[in-house]
C-alpha cells in the first residue's frame, strides 16, 4: 500500500519542481530545468500508476469505496466549536480538509493527466528549446500539474476549487507567456476573468451544498444525496447543480462562457495541447461527473447540461468550418468536443462522457502537438492558407496528425469512434422526442467535425505548396523529443477506444464497468424516477442488440465519410487563392462564421463596455464610469459641499464678528465711551496741581457746608 498511502506525493512532486524553478530557475541550465521538471512529472505519473494499481486491490477488499487520505484540516478550527447552521437548523462544522480521494473516476483523470502531461513536458523540451524564459515556462507547467492534480484528487469541493482556480491561474500565466505581445496579455486577462465568472457560480453552488448537506466532502454529500431523503427535482439541489454548471461552463468553455478558449491559443502550442485541450478544460466534465449523485436529482439541470452541450458542440463546430489559423480550428474543435461530453453527461451517460474525455485527451493533445510541429517546421506560420504539400516533408507529423484526425472524425477502429458513437447512441436512446433533436444536433456536428478536420489535413499536407520560398527552404521534421511523444500519443489515439469496445460489437466495455462504482447507481436512479431515462447495466445487453444501434453507428460513420469526401473535393488540390465552398455558396453565412457570430463584439458592447453603443457605454466599464462620476460629483461633492458650507458659515461668522460684535458692539461701545470718558478723565488727569486744586476746592466746600449749616 506504499503508493496509496503516500498518494499526497503525486501533486507534491510538480509543486516541488515549480518551487525550485521559482527560487533558482533563473540560475539553472536549460538541461537541469528539463531534468527537474520532466522528472517531477514522470515521478507523479509512476506514482499515479502505482496508486491506481494498488487501489484495485484495496477496492476489492473495501466494497469499492473511494480511498481517502486526509492530511490536515485546511479550513476551520478542528475543535468542533466553529459551526454554522444548515437549512434545517442543524449545526454543521465549518471545515474543509486538505485530503485526497481516489476512486475510479479520479483514477482515470489521474492517469491521463499525468501521462499526457509527461508527454507534453517532454515535447516542450524540444519545442521551447530556443525560447527565452525556459525555466519560467517549465515552472508554470509544473505549477499547472500541481493544480490539476489537486483539482482531481481533492476529497471535497473546497479543495477542488483550489485546483480549479489554480489551473485558471496557470492558464493565465501560460497564455500570457509571451507577455510582450499585447494580444497574448489581453487573451490571458480574458481567460482569467471569464473563468472567474464561472468560479463565482461554483462558489455559490458550493455554499449551497454546504448549506443543504452540511458538508463539502464528496462522500458525505453523495451519501446524503443517495439516502432517498431528497426528492427528484428538489429545487435547492437544482439550484446548486445549475450554479456548479455555471462554473463548468467557464472552465470547460461552454456557451455562453466559451469566448476565452479560442483566444487562449496565443499561448505556446504545448500549453494549448496540455491545458486548453487535454486536461484543464475537461475539469468541468470532471466536476459534473463527480457531482453525479446531485445532478440525477435535478432533471432540469440535466436537461440544461445536455442542451448547452449540444448547442455548444454545433455552434463551435460551425465556426471551425471556416477558420484559417490551424490552432483556431483545433480550439473550436475542442469547444465542440467538450460540448459532446456535456451532452453525454446531460443525458445521464456519465461513463460515456468520461470515456470521451479520455479518448479526446489523446487525440486532441496529439493534434495540437502535431500542429505545433507543423508551426515549428513552418518557422512560426500558423495560417493554413500559406501551407500545403507538407506530407512528404514532415512525414511523422503528417502520419500522426492523420491518425488523430481519423480518431476525432469517428472512423472505426480509432479511439474517437467508440466514445462519440456511445454518446450519440445514449442520446438517441434517451426517452423523449427532444432527445432525438439533440441526437440530430450531435450527428450534424459529427459531419462538420469530419469536414473541418480533413480540411485541416488537406490544406496543410496536400495541395500545392503556398508558402514563401524562404519558409519552404527551412521546412524540416521536428527533433526526436517532439516526434516521440507524437508517436506515443498516436498509438493511444488508435488504441484508447478499445477499452470501451461496446457489447454490440462483441466487446465488454471495460471502461464503463470500471466506472460502475461511481455511476451505476446513478444511471439507475435516473431511469427509475424520471422516465426520460438511462440504460441500466443489465438492460444494456438487450438493447445493444437492437438493429437500430447498428443503423445509427453506420450513419455516423457515413457522416464522417461525407465530411471527408467534401473536404477532399474542395481542398485536396488547393492552390494559392483557393475557393472556400461556403463563401461561394452563401457569402453572408461565411462572413458570420468568420467573425464567430460577432459574439466577442456583442460582449464588448454589453458586458465589458469596451465598445460604445453610440455615446452610451454599457457593461462593467459603463458602470465604472457612472460610479466614478457619482463618487466625484455626488458623494464627494456632498462632503466638499459640507466643507464649503462650514467655511461659508465661518466667513459669515467672522464678518459678523468683525463688523457686528467687534465693530458695532465692542468698538461702537468704545466709540461712545470715548467722549463720555472725557468727563471721567477729568478725575484722573495726572496733574498733581489739579488734584491739589480739587482737594482744596473740596476741602473748602466741606468746611463751608458744615460751617454754614
Amino acid at each position, binding site marked *: 500500500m506504499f503508493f496509496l498511502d503516500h498518494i499526497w506525493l503525486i501533486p507534491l512532486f510538480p509543486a516541488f519542481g515549480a518551487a525550485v524553478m521559482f527560487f533558482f530557475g533563473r540560475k539553472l541550465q536549460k538541461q537541469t530545468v528539463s531534468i527537474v521538471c520532466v522528472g517531477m512529472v514522470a515521478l507523479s505519473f509512476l506514482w499515479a500508476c502505482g496508486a491506481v494499481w494498488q487501489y484495485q486491490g484495496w477496492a476489492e477488499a473495501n466494497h469499492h469505496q473511494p480511498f481517502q487520505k486526509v492530511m*490536515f484540516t*485546511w479550513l476551520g478550527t478542528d475543535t468542533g*466549536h466553529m459551526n454554522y447552521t444548515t437549512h434545517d437548523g442543524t449545526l454543521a462544522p465549518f471545515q474543509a480538509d486538505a485530503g485526497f480521494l481516489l476512486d475510479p473516476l479520479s483514477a482515470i483523470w489521474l492517469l491521463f493527466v499525468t501521462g499526457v502531461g509527461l508527454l507534453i513536458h517532454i515535447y516542450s523540451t524540444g519545442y521551447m528549446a530556443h525560447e527565452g524564459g525556459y525555466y519560467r515556462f517549465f515552472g508554470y507547467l509544473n505549477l499547472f500539474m500541481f493544480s490539476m492534480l489537486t483539482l482531481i484528487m481533492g476529497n471535497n469541493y473546497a479543495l477542488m476549487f483550489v485546483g480549479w482556480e489554480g489551473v485558471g491561474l496557470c492558464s493565465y500565466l501560460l497564455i500570457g507567456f509571451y*507577455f510582450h505581445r499585447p494580444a497574448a496579455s489581453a487573451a490571458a486577462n480574458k481567460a482569467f*476573468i471569464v473563468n472567474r465568472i464561472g468560479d463565482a457560480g461554483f*462558489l455559490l453552488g458550493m*455554499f449551497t451544498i454546504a448549506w443543504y448537506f452540511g458538508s463539502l466532502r464528496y462522500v458525505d454529500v453523495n451519501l446524503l444525496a443517495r439516502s432517498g431523503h431528497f426528492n427528484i427535482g428538489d429545487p435547492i439541489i437544482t439550484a446548486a447543480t445549475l450554479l456548479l454548471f455555471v462554473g463548468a461552463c467557464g472552465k470547460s468553455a461552454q456557451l455562453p462562457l466559451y469566448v476565452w478558449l479560442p483566444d487562449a491559443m496565443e499561448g505556446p502550442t504545448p500549453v494549448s495541447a496540455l491545458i486548453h485541450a487535454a486536461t484543464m478544460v475537461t475539469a468541468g466534465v470532471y466536476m459534473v461527473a463527480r457531482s453525479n449523485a446531485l445532478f440525477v436529482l435535478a432533471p432540469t439541470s440535466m436537461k440544461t447540461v445536455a442542451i448547452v452541450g449540444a448547442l455548444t458542440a454545433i455552434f463551435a463546430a460551425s465556426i471551425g468550418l471556416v477558420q484559417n489559423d490551424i490552432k483556431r480550428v483545433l480550439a473550436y474543435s475542442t469547444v465542440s468536443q467538450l460540448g459532446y461530453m456535456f451532452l453525454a453527461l446531460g443525458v445521464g451517460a456519465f461513463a460515456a462522457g468520461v470515456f470521451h474525455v479520455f479518448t479526446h485527451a489523446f487525440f486532441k493533445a496529439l493534434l495540437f502537438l502535431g500542429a505545433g510541429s507543423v508551426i515549428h517546421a513552418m518557422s512560426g506560420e500558423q495560417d493554413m492558407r500559406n501551407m500545403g504539400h507538407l506530407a512528404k516533408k514532415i512525414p511523422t507529423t503528417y502520419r500522426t496528425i492523420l491518425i488523430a484526425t481519423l480518431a476525432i472524425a469517428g472512423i472505426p477502429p480509432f479511439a474517437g469512434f467508440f466514445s462519440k458513437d456511445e454518446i450519440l447512441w445514449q442520446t438517441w436512446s434517451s426517452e423523449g422526442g427532444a432527445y432525438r433533436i439533440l441526437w440530430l444536433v450531435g450527428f450534424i456536428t459529427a459531419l462538420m467535425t469530419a469536414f473541418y478536420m480533413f480540411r485541416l489535413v488537406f490544406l496543410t499536407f496536400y495541395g500545392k505548396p503556398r508558402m514563401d520560398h524562404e519558409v519552404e527552404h527551412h521546412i524540416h521534421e521536428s527533433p526526436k523529443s517532439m516526434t516521440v511523444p507524437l508517436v506515443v500519443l498516436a498509438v493511444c489515439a488508435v488504441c484508447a477506444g478499445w477499452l470501451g469496445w461496446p457489447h454490440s460489437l462483441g466487446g465488454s466495455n471495460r471502461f464503463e464497468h470500471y466506472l460502475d462504482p461511481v455511476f451505476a447507481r446513478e444511471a439507475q436512479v435516473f431511469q427509475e424516477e424520471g422516465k426520460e431515462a438511462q440504460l441500466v447495466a443489465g438492460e444494456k445487453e438487450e438493447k445493444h442488440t437492437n438493429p437500430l444501434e447498428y443503423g445509427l453507428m453506420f450513419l455516423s460513420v457515413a457522416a464522417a465519410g461525407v465530411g471527408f469526401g467534401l473536404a477532399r473535393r474542395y481542398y485536396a488540390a488547393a492552390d494559392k487563392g483557393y475557393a472556400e465552398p461556403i463563401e461561394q455558396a452563401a457569402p453572408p453565412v461565411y462572413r458570420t462564421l468568420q467573425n464567430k457570430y460577432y459574439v466577442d463584439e456583442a460582449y464588448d458592447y454589453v458586458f465589458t463596455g469596451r465598445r460604445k453603443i453610440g455615446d452610451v457605454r454599457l457593461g462593467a466599464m459603463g458602470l465604472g464610469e457612472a460610479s466614478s462620476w457619482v*463618487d466625484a460629483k455626488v458623494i464627494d461633492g456632498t462632503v466638499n459641499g459640507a466643507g464649503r458650507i462650514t467655511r461659508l458659515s465661518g466667513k459669515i461668522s467672522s464678518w459678523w464678528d468683525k463688523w457686528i460684535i467687534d465693530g458695532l458692539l465692542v468698538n461702537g461701545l468704545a466709540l461712545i465711551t470715548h467722549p463720555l470718558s472725557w468727563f471721567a478723565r477729568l478725575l484722573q488727569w495726572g496733574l498733581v496741581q489739579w488734584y491739589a486744586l480739587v482737594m482744596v476746592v473740596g476741602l473748602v466746600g466741606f468746611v463751608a457746608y458744615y460751617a454754614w449749616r
Partner: protein
Amino acid sequence: MQSHILSIILFTPLLGALLLLFVPKENKHAIRWIANMFALAGFLISLPLVPMFWEQRFEPGFKFLEGGANNWIPSIGAGYNLGIDGISFLLIMLTTLLGWISILSSWTAIEDRVKEYYIWFLVLQTGMLGVFMALDFFLFFVFWEAMLVPMYLLIGIWGGPRKLYAAIKFFLYTLAGSVLMLLGILFLYFNHHTLTGIYTFSIPALYQTAPQIPYHYAFWLFLAFFIGFAIKVPMFPFHTWLPDAHVEAPTAGSVILAGVLLKMGTYGFVRFALPFFPGVVTNPKVRGWMIALSIIGIIYGALVSLMQKDMKKLVAYSSVSHLGFCTLGIFALNSQGIAGSVLQQINHGISTGALFLIVGILYERRHTREISEYGGISNVMPVYATITMIMFLSSMGLPLLNGFIGEFTILQGTFMENRAWAAWAVPGVVLAAAYLLWLYQRVFFGKVTNPKNEKLHDLTPREVLTFVPLLILAFWIGLYPKPFFQILEQPVNQIVQTVRQPNANVNAELPVVHPEIVAQTSQGGK
C-alpha cells in the same frame, strides 16, 4: 500576577520617539537607524506574545489583563486598563509588523524633516496599539483621538501636492465621527451609573449594562457609534476621505492607513457596536441597511477602482471593496462571518499594505503614479513583477493565498444567513480580478514603450526585505489558516452568543434612578 507585556509592547515605540527628541536633526543617519531599531524592537518584543497567547487561546475572556478599573482618574472612573482577546491579538501583531515594515520602507523615501517624521510615526504606532489594547473606554478614546494627530501630520507634511486638503479632510471627517462616538460613550457611562451606581469606563463592565438599554435609545446610540466606525472603515458612502488621504500620504503612511487604521473601524464594530447593542444589530431593518451598505461598498468600490488612472487611487478604492467584505462578514452575525471578517482584516493589511509598498516603489523611481506612464515593467524589474503578481493574486482571493480564506469564510458565513446577500457580494470577486489584472497588464506587460522606464533598477535587498514577511504570511494563512481560526474561535463565539441573546435592548423605558443607588453614590461609594 500581572504580566506587563502589553505595556511594554505599547510603549516601546513611544520610547523610541522620546529618544529621537535628543538626537540632533542634522544626523539623519543616526535618526534612521534609531527609528528602525525601535520599530524592529517593537515587532520583536511582540513576538513572545504569540506562544504566550497560543497556550490560552481557548480560554474565555480577555487575557494579559493589566491595570485595573478606575486606577487612572479615580474621580471619574477611568482606568489604565489593558487586555486582549484573539481579535485584538491578531490586530496587534499586524500593527507591530506593519509598523516595522513601513518604517523600513521609508529609508530613502523621506528626505526632509526626517527627525519629525520618525518621531510622529513612532507616536502613531503607540496610538494604534493602544486602541487595540484598551479595555477602558476613556483610555480607548484617548488613543483613538491621539492617533489622528500624527497621521494628520504625516499626510499634511510629507504628503503629495494636495496634502493639506487631504490631511484636513481626513482629520475633520474622522473627528466628526469620533465626536458622535464620544456622546455615545458618555451615555453608556451614565447609564451604567444609573443601573449599578458605579461610575466607570471599564469596557467589560459596560458589556453588562449596555444591552439593557431600551431599543429606541439603543438605536440612536448605535447610530452614533456606527457613524464613528463607518467613517473609519470606511463604509460607503463615508469613504471619500480615503482616496484623497491615500493618494496624498507618503507610502508608509498609506501602508499604515490601509493596514491598520481602517481596521479600527471594523474592530470598533466587533468590539463595541455588536456586544453593546445586540438588540439593534439583530433588528432586520438595521442589519439590512448594514448589509446593503457593505454590498454596495464591495461592488461600487470595485467598479470605481476599475476606472482609475492613478495606481494609488485604484488600490485605495479596492480597499473600499475589501472592507465591504469585512463589514459584510461582521453583520452576518455568525461565527464564520465574524471570524472570516477579522481574518480578512488581517489579510487586507497584508496584501493591501504590500500593494501600497509596490506602488510606492515605482513612485520613488519615477515620481508618477499614472498608469499610462508605465508598461512593460516586467522586462526591467522581473523580481518586482513577480512579487507584485503574488500580491495581486493574494488581494483578488486566489486559493492557497490569504485573501481567499477570508473571502470564502465571509461569503459562506453570509450565505448561511441569507442566500441573496452572498449572491450580491460575489460579483466583487470577479471585478477584483478585472481591475487588478487589467492594472497588471497595463503596467507590467507589453514592451517598454516609455523611454523613462528603460533604466529602472529592480528591487534593492532592503525593499525585498519589506515584502518577505508579508509573502510568508500570505502563504501561511492561505495554506494553513487553522491556527488563526483557533485563535479567533473563542472571542468570536463569545460575541455571537452575546449578539444572539434574546431580550437585549428590548423596548422599554429607560430605568428610573433608584433612590437607594443615589444614596449609595452620595455616600462616597464609587
